[in-house]
């Protein structure tokens, strides 16, 4: 990377006498982010601290929401530092520039980027600490550093007898320096990377000791619940809190930006008092759409505007004009909620001119902006502490729960825990957008010659930028927040990465076809939307891989062979496709009453192919087996990779079978797990995962399991029933 020490590493003595290593992750990322990182001044936040007692603390800048960063990133440090991963104690990072995700220029965890962006820098941090400790030991012993070895937290003397523990060396190591970035271990020297080991947070999570946001407890804490308008965008016209205020334990009832908040000494008292609050909503600006009208709006938009050209290979018009046959299909996909099992919540306290917030958030720096926006505080006056997250899936990238807790705490001047009900969580989510896809293919001489894909729907950055843009420029005065948000949208691709949320997984159509055109018709019906596990891939994967299946059948080809023939130029796609077919018994006869479907999708740099076996039993779709082949580059923890792929499969099947948020006159109709169900234990398929061995740089794993399973299941149902379903969720219709 050609960096000198000043650029990548700062060594200092800890206040307690230990060794502190700070690291410039942002500058060290090997990933081209499309803009220049401004130079940042060093802050005393350490990535790695080794104390005199030999304790090792690692600041975890990517939150743990089940995807395994707590273990995976710690393993990278442990490998180079030559200690057991369990010997390192991860700490959740505070908000600081050093902890930003270099891809987004924000301190957020998302996009399946944690391991890819940390892969090199964290190993460098571990190796640097080790090199400093070895230099210190060599100086003590007056021997060449090259002769010293390191083992389980000790530096060994070349004589093979003497050794010094890291804790004994830290004070001296803090005074040492490194001329160059130290060499990293070669793969054949790895002891932890690539080996299946348990997770570091498991014991805390099986004893009930792990602290999630909802578990935060402060002295003299009070509780708040909020009623929000049924129709998105409505505001409080008036409210009557007379009865509520007379109830036992109720402290205050007042309007905040998003509704009416009740504060009481106990959660249940607040919840009951809220039922007695009557609110008149001003619906002048409220959403009025219904799910059916959204699809009508999309169809109309698709006819009016062919959309921005996002990919243009060959000549699609010519291909369509010269075709023997043109095949067309449209696919409709609904709004989806995140349904994290821990409902949205945050705890905040305002005292002495400062606010402290504790929250299960995927983006603590945006949380700081959110708190500042609804108070008179500047972001610098807000501290955000991150806890374990009871699921994220993109929901906790938006900070509305912090916004509400901050507004309430600022008014009541007491520590406040604000908790959403499950109904609040389902009805006031920001959703995976409903999308319309129109596909057209040209066939000549039995060959696919052209592919035309029109995607119709909103872009997520339009919704996200309100807090994201100010978070990128935290020194900007608050009066500029609105401007920054508008500039953020306008300068997309220049100041911020291009918003690919609608087109990802479509523009990178991998099959070898002479003419490929992909267009996006930007149509936003005003329903709040955000990132949802695998984002655009979740709907593009379904459209692309279902249409591929339709084409195979129209051309009289085997769906696996059809894909295979068109992937001869894409070895990594081809490898996972072939392995999934093998693992999924593609060539074996199938039991009576079952159908088999295949799909392939690359997302977040990771290649996943899946073969699904399904049936319809007693009027319900039953998924029996999902065979997955995955190539995510170098694997750090194979157990976590398998678990994440399986987790994505369950998440995708849940969406395919049940996922549907319905709007009627601007209001969400679903409310809890009875009408927004999740797959249950007895409905789980057998999931088998084959991991391709690879020395390529690691890519994402939290999301890539989701996109292929939805079309693979739909394709299996087609094989079973002969009926093609082009709308999600899938219906249990027998042949």
């Amino acid at each position, binding site marked *: 990377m050609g960096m000198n020490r000043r650029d990548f590493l700062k060594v200092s003595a800890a206040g307690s006498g230990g060794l502190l290593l700070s690291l410039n992750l942002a500058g060290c990322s090997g990933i081209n982010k499309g803009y220049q990182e401004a130079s940042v001044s060093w802050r005393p936040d350490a990535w790695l601290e080794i104390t005199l007692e030999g304790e090792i603390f690692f600041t975890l800048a990517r939150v743990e929401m089940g995807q395994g960063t707590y273990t995976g990133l710690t393993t990278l440090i442990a490998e180079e530092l030559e200690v057991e991963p369990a010997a390192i104690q991860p700490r959740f990072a505070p908000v600081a520039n050093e902890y930003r995700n270099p891809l987004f220029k924000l301190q957020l965890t998302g996009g399946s980027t944690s391991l890819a962006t940390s892969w090199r820098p964290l190993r460098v941090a571990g190796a640097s600490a080790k090199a400093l400790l070895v230099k210190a030991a060599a100086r003590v012993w007056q021997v060449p550093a090259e002769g010293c070895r390191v083992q389980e937290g000790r530096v060994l003397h070349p004589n093979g007898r003497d050794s010094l523990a890291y804790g004994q060396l830290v004070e001296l190591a803090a005074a040492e320096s490194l001329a160059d970035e130290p060499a990293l271990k070669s793969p054949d020297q790895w002891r932890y990377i690539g080996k299946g080991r348990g*997770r570091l947070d498991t014991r805390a999570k099986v004893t*009930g000791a792990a602290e999630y946001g909802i578990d935060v407890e402060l002295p003299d804490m009070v509780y708040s619940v909020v009623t929000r308008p049924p129709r998105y965008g409505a505001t409080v016209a008036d409210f009557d809190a007379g009865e509520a205020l007379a109830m036992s334990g109720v402290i205050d009832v007042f309007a905040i930006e998003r509704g009416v908040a009740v504060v009481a000494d106990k959660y249940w008292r607040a919840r009951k008092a809220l039922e007695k609050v009557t609110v008149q909503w001003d619906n002048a600006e409220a959403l009025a759409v219904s799910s059916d009208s959204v699809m009508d709006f999309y169809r109309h938009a698709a006819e009016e505007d062919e959309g921005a050209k996002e990919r243009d290979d060959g000549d699609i018009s010519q291909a369509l004009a010269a075709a023997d046959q043109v095949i067309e299909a449209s696919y409709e996909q609904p709004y989806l909620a995140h349904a*994290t099992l821990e409902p949205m919540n945050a705890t905040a306290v305002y005292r002495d001119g400062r606010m402290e917030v504790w929250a299960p958030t995927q983006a603590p720096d945006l949380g700081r902006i959110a708190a500042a926006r609804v108070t008179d505080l500047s972001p610098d006056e807000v501290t955000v502490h991150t806890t374990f997250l009871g699921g994220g899936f993109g929901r906790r990238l938006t900070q509305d729960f912090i916004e509400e807790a901050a507004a309430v705490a600022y008014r009541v001047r007491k520590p406040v825990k604000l908790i959403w009900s499950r109904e609040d969580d389902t009805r006031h989510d920001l959703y995976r957008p409903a999308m319309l896809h129109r596909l057209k293919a040209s066939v000549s001489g039995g060959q696919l010659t052209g592919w035309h894909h029109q995607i119709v729907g909103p872009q997520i950055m339009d919704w996200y930028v309100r807090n994201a843009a100010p978070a990128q420029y935290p020194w900007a005065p608050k009066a500029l927040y609105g401007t920054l948000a508008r500039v953020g949208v306008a300068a997309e691709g220049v100041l911020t990465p291009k918003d690919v949320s609608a087109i990802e997984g479509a523009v990178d159509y991998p099959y070898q076809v002479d003419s490929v055109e992909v267009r996006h018709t930007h149509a936003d019906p005003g329903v709040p939307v955000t990132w949802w596990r695998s984002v655009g891939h979740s709907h593009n994967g379904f459209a692309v891989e279902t249409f591929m299946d339709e084409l195979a059948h129209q051309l009289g080809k085997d769906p696996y062979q059809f894909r295979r023939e068109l992937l001869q130029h894409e070895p990594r796609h081809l490898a996972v496709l072939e392995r999934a077919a093998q693992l999924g018994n593609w060539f074996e006869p199938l039991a009576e009453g079952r159908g088999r479907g295949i799909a392939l999708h690359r997302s977040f740099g990771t290649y996943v192919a899946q073969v699904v076996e399904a049936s319809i039993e007693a009027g319900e779709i039953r998924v029996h087996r999902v065979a997955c082949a995955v190539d995510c580059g170098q694997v750090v923890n194979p157990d976590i990779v398998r678990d994440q792929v399986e987790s994505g499969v369950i998440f995708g099947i849940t969406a395919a079978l049940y996922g549907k948020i319905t709007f009627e006159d601007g209001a969400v109709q679903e409310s809890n797990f009875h009408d927004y169900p999740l797959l249950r234990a007895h409905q789980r398929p057998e999931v088998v995962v084959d991991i391709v061995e690879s020395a390529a740089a690691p890519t994402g794993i939290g999301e890539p399991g989701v996109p292929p399973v939805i079309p693979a299941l739909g394709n299996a149902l087609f094989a079973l029933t002969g009926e093609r379903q082009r709308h999600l969720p899938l219906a249990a219709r027998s042949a």
Partner: protein
Amino acid sequence: MAVTLTINGQRHSVDVEDDTPLLWVIRDEVGLKGTKFGCGRALCGACTVYLDGSPIRSCSTPVSVAAGQSVTTIEGLSAGDTLHKLQQAWIEHGVPQCGYCQSGQLMTAAHLLSYNPTPSDADIDAAMSGNLCRCGTYSNLVAAIKSVAGKAEEA
């Protein structure tokens, strides 16, 4: 009003309304945070505790129902530092991902084994079908249960 109940062997007297769900008494009055709030309507199982040895959904059980009775939470599943064999199996099988539902999963699984030490696959499915996991850890947790039940894993 004051309600007296025993939680994990300790007597507690709490001053709350009768209709307060047991969940909030356990979490906020007694301070045991391992039992989780997920849905508030007995649909997800994250709040599962035992009332006199039988699993209940504490989010939908008024504290008055538990008055004078004995409640066991995830904190009471292990004996001091010695983990319940299922907790140990959960660790060995790396079950938890986000982990939020796992207290409820463990309470349900431990109850199953308490009356049916060698459950069939169908028994396990039936017992665990009431506990939702958004991370999809089902196959790992079923494998963990089987390992404790001393039953060979079936393909």
